[in-house]
Each structure stands twice: as C-alpha cells, then as structure tokens.
C-alpha cells in the first residue's frame, strides 16, 4: 500500500473558514477571563456535547454489530463516547486547521470513539462459537454455492494450505482470527493491544501473499479472477 509510503493526498485548506466553524472556535477557545466569556464557553461545550451524544446514539443504532447493544447499555456507551470525544476535541482544538467544517472534524472524534468502544465491547459478550471446524464454513463466507461441494472443498483446502505455507505466524494468527473465526478487526486490535492500522497492514500483506501462493499453484490467474 502506499502503506508503501504516504499519499500525495493533495489536501488543500478550505478558505476562508466558514462562519459557523469560526463561531465554534471563538466560543470554545473562551480566552476571555470575564464571566460572560466563560458562560459562553460553557454553553458551547454543552451544545457540542449534545451534538456528539446524538451522533453517538445514531451511530450505535446504525452499526450492525455481532452483538446487538440496546437499552441502558447502549445509552452508557453513547455517553462514554460523547464524553471521551469532547475531551479529545478540547485537547486538540489548537490542531483544527479549518481544512473541513468544525462540526465534521468534531463528529469524526465521536465516530472513532464508537468504533473503539464497540471493539472492546465485543469481548464482554462475544458471540457463541458454532461447533465444528470453522474452516468448513469458509466457502460460505465467500458465497460459494453450497451445492458445489467439490468446489467448496477445493477452495477451503487451497486457502488453508496457502495460509499454512505462505504466511508468517503473526499473519496466520491475524488472518485466521478475522477471516476464519470472524472476529471484527477492531476487536482483534483491542485484544492484541495493537492498532487498527497495524492489523490492517498485517492483513494487507497476508492477502497479497495468499493470492501469490494461489496463483503459483494454479488456483487463480495472475491478473484476472478465475472463471467458474
């Protein structure tokens, strides 16, 4: 990936800063020492927290998660996400450069908090594992026709050999956890004390190596997907 290096993303500054963002910054910075300035900042913080809380609730409802989170548990998660996002925003306010609208920048924090909290939450109530060899369910994950038993067996066998023969121990562990056992990437990152980026990079390299192995053994073509 340009994991192989940083991107020339071509980020350009929005200018001038839109009026609403400027107003958020003015109120939240609250540099004035007078009571009016302090009260204005408190009102802005409360308003921002309400927006973040509403966004956290909406995001928790929107996400399809292996374990459904509802009621008080979802309320608690939403409040934690909004509280932590607000703290992060205040701590990084001086890093806001106006490249996006302030509210878009602020909502990003609460979306990230929801992701991180769902990743950790997964281990409090992990889904019940279905009995049997998880590798046998691999063809289903890739939409193989259940009626095509021979194809399904061949696909699962070839993939399993590639994972065993082509991957490092770390890559194998991550690949099996995510693809075979179905553990969400953020949950695995939390479990391993790692980061989403590091796990993704491991998976990225694993995918490349597995594909090369399957091409070398005639299961896939070098460029074009195999015709069924």
């Amino acid at each position, binding site marked *: 990936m340009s994991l192989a290096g940083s991107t020339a*993303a071509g980020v350009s500054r929005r200018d001038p800063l839109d009026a609403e963002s400027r107003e958020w910054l003015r109120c939240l910075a609250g540099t004035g020492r007078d009571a009016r300035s302090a009260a204005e900042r408190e009102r802005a913080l409360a308003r921002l927290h309400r927006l973040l809380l509403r966004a956290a609730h909406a995001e928790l409802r*929107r996400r399809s998660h292996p374990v459904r989170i509802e009621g008080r548990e979802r309320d608690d998660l939403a409040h934690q996400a909004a509280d932590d996002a607000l703290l992060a925003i205040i701590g990084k306010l001086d890093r806001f450069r106006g490249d996006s609208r302030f509210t878009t920048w602020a909502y990003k924090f609460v979306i990230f908090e929801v992701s991180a909290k769902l990743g950790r939450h997964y281990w409090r109530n992990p889904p019940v594992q279905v009995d049997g060899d998880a590798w046998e369910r691999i063809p289903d994950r890739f939409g193989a026709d259940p009626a095509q038993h021979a194809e399904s067996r061949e696909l699962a066998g070839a993939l399993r050999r590639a994972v065993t023969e082509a991957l490092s121990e770390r890559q194998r562990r991550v690949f099996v956890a995510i693809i075979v056992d179905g553990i969400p990437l953020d949950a695995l990152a939390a479990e391993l004390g790692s980061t989403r980026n590091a796990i993704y990079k491991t998976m*990225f390299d694993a995918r490349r190596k597995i594909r090369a192995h399957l091409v070398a053994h005639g299961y896939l073509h070098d460029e074009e997907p195999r015709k*069924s």
Partner: protein
Amino acid sequence: MSGWQALDQFLQTDPQDVGCDRAMEILDIYVDAVIRQGTDATERRYPGVAAHLRACGPCGEDYAGLLAAVS
C-alpha cells in the same frame, strides 16, 4: 459471482491504498469533499483514501458513519 471470484476479489490489494492512519487523518476533509463535490470527484482527488475505504471494513464503517452524521 463464484466463491473463487469472491475470494480473488478479497485477496486483491491496491498499491494506492494509504492505510488506516492516513485515511482516518483526513476523513473529515474527505467527507466534506464528498458533500461539496460528490463521490466520483472526491475519489479522483483522493484515490489512495478511496482505495482504502473500499478495502477496509472498519474504516469504511467510520466513513459511512461520519457521512451520515453530517448529512
């Protein structure tokens, strides 16, 4: 799509993919660009981020969530 085709699609990697950290760093800029200029123009402008959002489930979820929050 057969199981092999789906597996092949999953295994394909895009060398332009910028990874999670970079994509998430500018996610707010990307989302505002989508709102102002549309998805196609934004993907052309930030191809490495677009490639990553297509390939990374969790970052794709964050993108969808942020877009929903500001839309």
